[in-house]
């Protein structure tokens, strides 16, 4: 049996707005997003609200309900008193577009700045093998649905907008932690990068990100604090420093705000040479990176000089085919784990420039 409930919903856009009162019917088992939809269907058809799955898995319907960052689809109306007025507002940390819809592109900028997974140079795709016990920690962070509630509640940017250029936020700290803990990630400078480029030091461990996470990821205890401790390993631990000096181990160069991309196995063979996402463009707030790439000056020079058309092009091996001359249908019948590559097993991507077998149509024409 439904009942009438009082709602206050923020209506407006970037030029201003206000809380508007509504009286809406609420039925048993409904969530706040249902009420928003009922409002759209009745007295407020122009009420803007972003939503998608209604199952707490897409992270679209992030909003603030009675001042708390929540998912609209996961906030049951039964958690409120019948006499209680429910106040719904857009996320405060991000610019508003209209009503409950905000512009969360800040998060996508930070996502692009975060270095991507860097596979080991000596293991071909398809041959990656990991122990379950090694990936469990990373898998917790893979539950993230990118609702950005943690980014919204973090007071570092919520209350201090000026920190946005230098601070990536909890969602990207767990991304950094995920990759730093990943058993096959080849980058060795993630903790340095997190500290110097992502603003890990801004976090003061007040755990609001963990409190609001709808996936119950232990963002602080399992992601941010371990990353802070890893930074301590590299930067602040005199015992580690002494051990490194004596045993000459862990000779990873200390990175500054912009020199943190020079190391890591991903640079081997210049396979990523020339793959620079920024292309020499301006860096925002001293923060820059590109996904998984690296600066290798030799490879960079080679890339700038272009392809040597007179080189000897190695012939790739043919794809592994069975007796009938076709690719095996399943890996069960194949003599290797994982699916065979249709390009031949000696070909890895991206192709290094010296292995390109493309020839320009006019390459062999006589010059006049």
């Amino acid at each position, binding site marked *: 049996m439904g009942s009438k409930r009082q709602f206050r919903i*923020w209506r407006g856009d*970037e030029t201003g*707005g206000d809380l508007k009162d509504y009286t809406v019917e609420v039925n048993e088992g409904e969530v706040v997003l249902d009420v928003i939809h009922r409002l759209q269907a009745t007295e407020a058809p122009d009420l803007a609200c972003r939503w998608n799955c209604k199952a707490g898995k897409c992270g679209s319907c992030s909003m603030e309900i*009675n001042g708390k960052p929540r998912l609209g689809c996961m906030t049951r109306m039964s958690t409120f008193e019948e006499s209680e007025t429910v106040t719904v507002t857009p996320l*405060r940390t991000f610019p*508003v577009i209209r009503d409950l819809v905000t*512009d969360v592109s800040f998060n996508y900028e930070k996502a692009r700045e975060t270095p991507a997974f860097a596979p080991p140079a000596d293991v071909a795709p398809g041959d990656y093998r990991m122990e379950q016990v090694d990936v469990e920690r990373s898998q917790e962070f893979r539950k993230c649905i990118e609702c950005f509630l943690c980014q919204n*509640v973090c007071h570092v940017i919520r209350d201090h907008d*000026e920190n946005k250029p230098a601070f990536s936020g909890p969602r990207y700290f767990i991304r950094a932690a995920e990759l730093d803990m990943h058993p096959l990630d080849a980058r060795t400078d993630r903790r340095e990068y997190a500290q110097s480029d992502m*603003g890990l030091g801004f976090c003061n461990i007040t755990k609001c990100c963990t409190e609001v996470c709808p996936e119950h990821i232990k963002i602080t205890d399992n992601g941010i604090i371990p990353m802070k401790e890893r930074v301590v390993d590299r930067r602040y631990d005199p015992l580690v420093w002494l051990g490194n000096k004596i045993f000459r181990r862990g000779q990873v160069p200390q990175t500054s705000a912009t020199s943190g991309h020079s190391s890591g196995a991903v640079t081997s063979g210049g396979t990523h040479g020339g793959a620079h996402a920024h292309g020499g463009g301006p860096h925002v707030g001293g923060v820059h990176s590109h996904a998984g790439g690296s600066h290798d000056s030799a490879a960079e020079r080679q890339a700038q000089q272009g392809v040597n058309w007179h080189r000897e092009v190695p012939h790739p091996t043919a794809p592994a085919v069975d007796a009938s001359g076709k690719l095996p249908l399943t890996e069960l019948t194949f003599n290797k784990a994982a699916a065979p590559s249709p390009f031949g097993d000696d070909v890895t991507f991206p192709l290094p420039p010296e292995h390109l077998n493309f020839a320009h149509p006019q390459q062999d024409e006589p010059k006049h």
Partner: protein
Amino acid sequence: MTTTSARTPRPQPRGGRARAAIAAKTLRTDRWWFAPLITVVGLSAWVIYATVRVFMHKWYWVEQYHYLTPFYSPCVTDRCVEGSSHFGQFLPGWWIIPDAALTLPFLLLFRLTCYYYRKAYYRSFWLSPPACAVPDGHQSYSGETRFPLLGQNLHRYFFYAAAIISLINTWDAILAFHSPEGFGFGLGNIILLVNVVMLWAYTISCHSCRHIIGGRLKHFSKHPMRYKAWTGVSWLNVRHMQLAWITLGTLALTDFYVMAVAAGWINDLRFIN
């Protein structure tokens, strides 16, 4: 109760779109202020009690049963009662010098830099922020990027010190199985033991300990023993907040019990001798 005091919307940086113009500082309707309030009351009460006791310079040692309060262990000033000094009496007995000057500063710094206590006092004392989605009490914020808060990264060293001090406290608890007839066992022993067990639990559950034990590894599969230890420390680590408060309680209770017996306010309940 909704807080609805108005504020001027902040100017928007970088020439981007403006945030929603919501006048209320927070729209939370729950008792968000309760947790920081109770933290202020609890921590303040404990600090006041501990300060008074540390500078009282008496009633810390029960000669008959060898009970020594953790606030005076090890006693290292020249005013210390004989028997309470395991490591000599090499500091002058000035009033301002705590009798356990060798250990108390490290214990204080261990708790001050503890990841749980940081959350507690940043929220409750420094209001940065007082609660989630409640505005920070400061105009600017640089977090732990500058001195002196950069020093929070030294937590690991205070953990090492705290582990050594826990050994000393354990030794105190073992020596306390004493009576004028030789071996003895009373209620004071139980209190000292419980305190030591809780102190170990709090120390081991520390986030730095969790990292050192195994958290720093990338491949647990190559270090099965450390992985097992890490799993155990992680189990305790989840309870770090509870242990932080429990040990404040057991420390104060142990000290008060020893003080009460030493002052003659109560007699120790003896089970053996």
